[in-house]
């Protein structure tokens, strides 16, 4: 028996359906507490290097996900804007992709994700320039991880060397593992069967990950709600991440 692998018809239908992609995320800014568990979980899952004090203070931190916050008003009426975890939005219409001369960042047709192919990357950093969300991080050096720290490396994820661009992958290694599992059992992946490292860690469950091409999934339901919006929607990048407004 063969299981039919769902490949979204890419070019035309994709745009007409208004569908964002296959995998998506909803982040509820009302309950995100800014606790940074997602940041740590992501770093641990994806072998993201730490860069040290000087580099991190100079905009070279490698976080694939960061929590943004701003201020509104003046003391004592000051308010912090809701914490906004910012990660690769896995745009359906990604500005980073066409500008890479080496095809190192491409759109996956089967996952409808924005891929970064480390081995192809020659480090022109054009993609990062062109990312309106500024969520790509570049390996400015071979960041040192003294022994025995490398014991912790996740063998499912490539360890990147200097000169290579990287970014959030929606934990594609977990997607593939779950897909393989489901395929071997001749079924579709169930909603909530697995999730990304950030969503898994999130103590408030503010991050929900799943199929957005399935209208019944938790993430689709959240994304459809009245609080949902996309970051920099006006650019037409068709992000796969939906933020839920606070309040």
């Amino acid at each position, binding site marked *: 028996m063969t299981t039919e692998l769902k490949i979204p018809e890419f070019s035309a239908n994709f745009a007409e359906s208004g569908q964002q992609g296959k995998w998506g995320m909803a982040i509820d800014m009302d309950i995100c507490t800014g606790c940074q568990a997602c940041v740590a979980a992501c770093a641990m899952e994806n072998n993201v290097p730490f860069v040290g004090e000087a580099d991190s203070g100079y*905009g070279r931190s490698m976080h694939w996900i960061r929590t*943004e916050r701003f201020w509104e008003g003046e003391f004592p009426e000051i308010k912090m804007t809701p914490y906004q975890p910012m990660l690769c939005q896995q745009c359906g219409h990604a*500005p980073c992709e066409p500008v890479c001369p080496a095809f190192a960042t491409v759109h996956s047709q089967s996952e409808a994700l924005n891929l970064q192919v480390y081995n192809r990357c020659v*480090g022109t950093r054009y993609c990062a320039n062109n990312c*309106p969300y500024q969520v790509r991080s570049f390996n400015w*050096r071979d960041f040192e991880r003294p022994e025995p720290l490398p014991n912790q490396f996740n063998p499912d994820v490539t360890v990147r060397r200097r000169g290579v661009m990287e970014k959030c992958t929606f934990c594609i290694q977990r997607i593939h593992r779950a897909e393989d599992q489901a395929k071997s059992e001749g079924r579709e992946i169930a909603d909530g069967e697995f999730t990304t490292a950030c969503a898994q860690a999130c103590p408030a469950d503010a991050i929900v990950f799943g199929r957005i091409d399935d209208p019944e999934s938790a993430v689709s339901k959240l994304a459809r709600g009245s609080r949902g919006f996309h970051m920099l929607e006006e650019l037409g990048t068709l992000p796969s991440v939906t933020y839920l407004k606070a309040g």
Partner: protein
Amino acid sequence: MTSTEKHHDHAQDHVAHLREQHLMLDPLPRGQMNDMVMESMHTTSWKFWVVFGILSVIVAVFLFGAWGYMIANGLGVAGVNRPSYWGIFLVNTVFWIGISHAGTFISAILRVFKAEFRRPFTRAAELMTTFGLVQAGFSIFMHMGRVWLSYWLMPIPNQRGLWPNFHSPLSWDLLAITTYLLSSTMYLFLPLIPDLAMARDRTPDGTWQKTFYRVLALGFRGTEGEWTHLRNAMNIFAFAIIPVMFSVHTIVSWDFAAATRPGWNSTIFGPYFVVGALHSGMGAVAMVLAVVQSRMKHMKYFIRGEHFEALGMLMLLVSMAWAYFFFNDYMVQWYGGDKWTQQLLHFHEGGPLGWMWFAMLVFNVVIPWATLWNKKWRSNPWLLFGVGLLINVGMWFERYIIIPISLTINRMPFTWRMYTPGVEVFLGIGTVAFFILLYMGASRLIPLIPVWEVQEGQMAHSLKTYGRETVVTVSELE
């Protein structure tokens, strides 16, 4: 003395004056000019070698040494960061490609339009094109994170079955710059062949220079056929290289204009960049000519006030065009009202490097306009050198404002961050030193003056008297 005689005297003075003014009216026998050019190559003071040595050390340490250090340690030793992913590397790339535009402009456009003043310095300008492109190439390769894999960007069949992404402006850039580098080098070489043959004929046997010239002269004798082929080719080149030149800087501008960034996403960037390139290129030609004229023997004969005067006029014209495009871009960005663009404009002028924005306008517009309108002033080589230097600084500032400073402001205010250059400063100095070094080396080996073109021009020029007025006439020989 009768009035007729008086008038005659006056006319005599006038002719003498014209001859003094114009190289084309002041012919010397070809052999003598050849001797002068050869002598200018062979007369080298110890100061030359001191400067040459210092520059060699700078190139070795700052360019190759620092580059090796950066390759070994990663781009972290440079100042690039998020969000200024491109720093001085790309500033220098654009700057050097800009410099390279002057050579083509002078030797191709002026050749097509038969601007006779170009003749003695087309070679000097073309050399700038080639050497400037070499520096641009260095700069763009330096900025790559994994430069050892840069061949992956070339469209060559490979076992991965993967070709470059022709959606990317960087791929266009690569093709355009390669095309431009190859064609400008060929365009430098074609008119050089007769002069190399001349040098071959005047170099004693048994020296390595003889071999050098022999090989490069390709066996040129000056037969009718050879001249015909050469002239045909040069005419094709002169026409065809102009769109290539325009395309190169336009594509460079698309690296920015095609991006979804505030301040970059502008439709006028193409011509704006081309004019900017000419602006800095003209300034650089003026600088080179001033140095060549004062430092190399016999060059005062070949390069005269008239040439600086003409160049100065061109510079003024280009400066005006630049100001026009700059204002055009600025006006539309300002009027657009996009909040990020607004923020960027404020940041340009009022940010920590706001002085650079004002200096750019002063150097690129105010100073050229204030000085170059005056014919006498713009005939002065050192004044033109100064103005050219300031224009180049101003144009470098312009690129610095467009690249690292504009990159600071994006749509994610949480990531805005200033850029502080690191090792790329040394690399930049290294490219400047390498450019000068190549030029100095070339001035010892390559006849900087295209003697045959000068002679051809002198043959074509004559004085003609209309009534009481003696004027210069040029006959079309081709």
